[in-house]
């Protein structure tokens, strides 16, 4: 005598003919006492007779027919890259990590100064309404601007210093022309050009901008 639970455990194997002859005989002698399980057997048989027609074996055979070729191809690609793989796995990531560390260190060093510089310039520009300022000494300014923008063999810091030291009011206006108009809009450029100034030079530049006649 076997329990209903045991019969249920054997039911799929019975339907799919996976029981031994002895197990099958015991199962069949007991199952008639459970009409619900008999119904279930019929239902499973009916549904799985459809499923059996699907021929999954054929589907899987079709799909795996070229597995060997694909695996061998990938394996040979892998081995031909094995020399490179050491480089890719270790050398390049290490180099990139070092570069990122250097970049982070440098940018962290400059960030506070840059922000402060940018804020100060923007405040001055806004306070003095420099965005709408027009310069009339065009020729004079152009010579400085060309030097400043294109280098022409002259160091940018020197150009700024020479403008600031110039007693001509146009020279001071040129500072306004160069700094606020050409460079504040693009912080990257202004930082590249002016970050070499030390604090004293920088403060002097700010004072000159403040004192400029508009």
């Amino acid at each position, binding site marked *: 005598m076997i329990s209903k*639970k045991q019969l249920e455990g054997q039911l799929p194997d019975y*339907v799919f003919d996976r029981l031994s002859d002895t197990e099958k005989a015991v199962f069949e002698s007991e199952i008639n006492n459970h009409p619900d399980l008999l119904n279930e057997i019929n239902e499973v048989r009916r549904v*799985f007779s*459809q499923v059996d027609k699907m021929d*999954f074996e054929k589907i899987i055979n079709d799909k*795996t027919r070229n597995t*060997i070729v*694909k695996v*061998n191809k990938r394996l040979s690609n892998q081995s031909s890259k094995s020399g490179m793989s050491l480089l890719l796995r270790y050398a390049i990531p290490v180099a990139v990590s070092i570069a990122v560390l250097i970049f982070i260190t440098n940018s962290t060093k400059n960030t506070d100064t840059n922000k402060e510089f940018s804020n100060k310039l923007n405040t001055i520009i806004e306070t003095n309404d420099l965005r709408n300022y027009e310069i009339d000494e065009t020729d004079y300014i152009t010579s400085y601007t060309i030097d400043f923008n294109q280098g022409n063999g002259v160091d940018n810091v020197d150009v700024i210093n020479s403008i600031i030291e110039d007693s001509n009011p146009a020279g001071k206006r040129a500072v306004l022309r160069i700094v606020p108009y050409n460079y504040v809009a693009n912080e990257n450029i202004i930082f590249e050009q002016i970050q070499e100034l030390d604090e004293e030079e920088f403060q002097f530049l700010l004072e000159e901008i403040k004192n400029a006649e508009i």
Partner: protein
Amino acid sequence: MTATVLEIDLSLIKSYKTSNSNKIANDIVNTYKKFVFATALRFVNDYDDADDITQEVFIKVLTSLHKFENKSSFKTWIYRITSNISINFLRKKKIRNFFSLNNSVSEQDFISSDLTPEERLDKKELDSIFRKAIASLPEKQRETFALRYFDDLTYEEISQMIGTSVGGLKANYHQAVKKITSYINQSNSEVIK
């Protein structure tokens, strides 16, 4: 039958470990390709994805065969590699789909071209319903069903693979068959409506 399989496994593995022979690699792939493909298919429910996973599994198996320590059967070891790779694949796919507008799943038609268009449609539908029915099962029931129904494994072998008692596996198998039957019946009645 199990003992024979294990014997073949071990001799293949030992030979490959010493010789790295292409022929033995091909034998290993040939012996297990259907098993790996069917296992992957149950996880990802997509033929093309299962094909990719199958290749990846064999590359992993052949390149890390030296790590196989005979603590389990070779088939169990391959099964674990397949399920791990399939689960990782699904995780990556979820992330990809999250960032992609195109979530379409490719599906290839494997139904015989000898059939009429109506028969092909019927079989294609049944194939889709059956795979959805399997996919809807809880993981242990799904794996028990597949390993028993498709792969003809003994309960003892399945127990080694998924770590459930033989009694528990029989109950899982019964529940799985019952649910699949009910799922297909329900889908058929919806089609008729």
